């Protein structure tokens, strides 16, 4: 079925279903944040679902989504040292919902913000342009919650993550202690070791500014301690469970877990330099946009009309 035909089908679904389903629920955000008011009529659940399906087809066309149905369940490859080899090109699974929200596994996506955390979140929503949009490194755990694919290269004494926009982090095996006063970094000061088949990454020493803990603008502080447990349960899947302890902004530690799917043979990272052309930067406003009822960021924008007005309609 061609994409045009798919769109026609979705449009028909939209028209037919618009009167059958209730409007989308009000914005729901992880944490006690003030909702960002929409400036247009709400998008119905049917419109949102149709939009999501089309977005999926676009993401599939771009090769960014993993193929869950055909992921290998063969035993994971192992290196000469017997450890699982985490190397590969890893893509998001459709089962990770909502992507980009570090509160994904918490009831109502609600993060345990302290009073200082609530203030920091409000500041991010109303005063701060997304650090990633400014081409700063998202760091962890934000990268763990991202929809973007990434690569891992593992050798005999390091695991190295390669991300889009030419970011990387490299963690040596069997380093058990952090320096006494680590330099602040977006990925933190990372040390790692194996616990059975799990590669554990322990990170402290994060930046105390310009870091969002996820796509939704939730805050992270320099007091954060993140512990990731990376496993490859089979050849086709990679899993992380991360424990986040940031006493400045969160009342107690919480966990986030997700799985990625192995890419196809030939999949690889391509050049994508974030700073090449930042024309958009001077036009960007603060915050991530409203958070949808499904926990993902972005306004629910009404469908684009078949024939929008020309710029004269806006006095342009």
């Amino acid at each position, binding site marked *: 079925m061609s994409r*045009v035909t798919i*769109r026609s089908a979705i*449009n028909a*679904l939209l028209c*037919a279903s618009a009167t*059958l*389903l209730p409007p989308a629920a009000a914005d729901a955000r992880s944490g006690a944040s003030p909702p960002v008011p929409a*400036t247009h009529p709400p998008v119905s659940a*049917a419109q949102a*679902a*149709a*939009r*999501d399906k089309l*977005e*999926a087809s*676009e*993401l599939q*066309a*771009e*090769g960014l*989504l993993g193929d869950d149905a055909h992921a290998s369940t063969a035993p994971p490859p192992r290196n000469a040292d017997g450890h699982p080899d985490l190397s590969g090109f890893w893509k*998001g699974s459709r089962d*990770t919902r*909502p*992507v980009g929200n570090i509160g994904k596994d918490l009831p109502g996506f609600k993060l345990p913000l302290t009073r200082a955390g609530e203030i920091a979140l409000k500041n991010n929503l109303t005063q701060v342009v*997304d650090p990633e*949009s400014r081409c700063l490194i998202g760091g962890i755990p934000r990268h763990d919650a*991202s*929809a*973007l694919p990434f690569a891992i290269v593992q050798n005999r004494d390091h695991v190295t993550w390669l991300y889009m*926009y030419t970011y990387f982090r490299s963690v040596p095996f069997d380093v058990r202690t952090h320096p006494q006063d680590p330099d602040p970094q977006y990925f933190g000061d990372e040390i790692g070791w194996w616990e059975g088949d799990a590669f554990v990454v322990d990170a402290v020493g994060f930046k105390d500014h310009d870091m969002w803990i996820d*796509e939704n603008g939730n805050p992270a502080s320099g007091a954060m301690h993140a512990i990731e447990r990376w496993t490859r349960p089979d050849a086709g899947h990679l899993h992380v469970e991360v424990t986040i302890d940031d006493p400045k902004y969160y009342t107690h530690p919480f966990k986030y877990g997700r799985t990625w799917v192995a890419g196809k043979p030939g999949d690889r990272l391509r050049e*994508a*330099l*974030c700073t*090449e*052309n930042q*024309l*958009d930067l001077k*036009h*960007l*406003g603060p*915050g*991530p*946009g409203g958070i*949808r009822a*499904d*926990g*993902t960021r*972005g*306004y629910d*924008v009404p*469908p*684009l*009309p078949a024939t929008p007005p*020309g*710029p*004269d309609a*806006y006095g*342009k």
Partner: protein
Amino acid sequence: MKTASLLAAGIALLGTLPVHAHHSFAAEFDGTKPVRLVGTITRIQWTNPHSYFYLDVRDAQGRIRNWACESGNPGALSRRGWKKGDIKLGDTLIVDGYLAKDGSRLVDARRVKLPDGRSVYGDTASDGGTDGAPR
């Protein structure tokens, strides 16, 4: 009733999609201001994290205004079937998108009709904006 049940079940299965944009739609564009530009290409930038092309557009008074159109990155556009050889300076494009919030002559190029007649999705999937499908 059966139709309603099938539709509801189908919609429930669709789920939610990853967000992977460099910035959210809402940070830059106004979802209440859809716009169509018809103009000739004066400049093309196949760059990361966004591609841009610029159009000379004639307004109702006959004046020529130059507009910037923001698109996805070259890799994303290419994987969707929009290659850099598909447009050149002087070509006429029809671009449907949304005005920038700050009032500048900048649009989010959601739907682009290419010189060969194809209509392509021009921006970043799942940035919180619309999919660009005509309604």
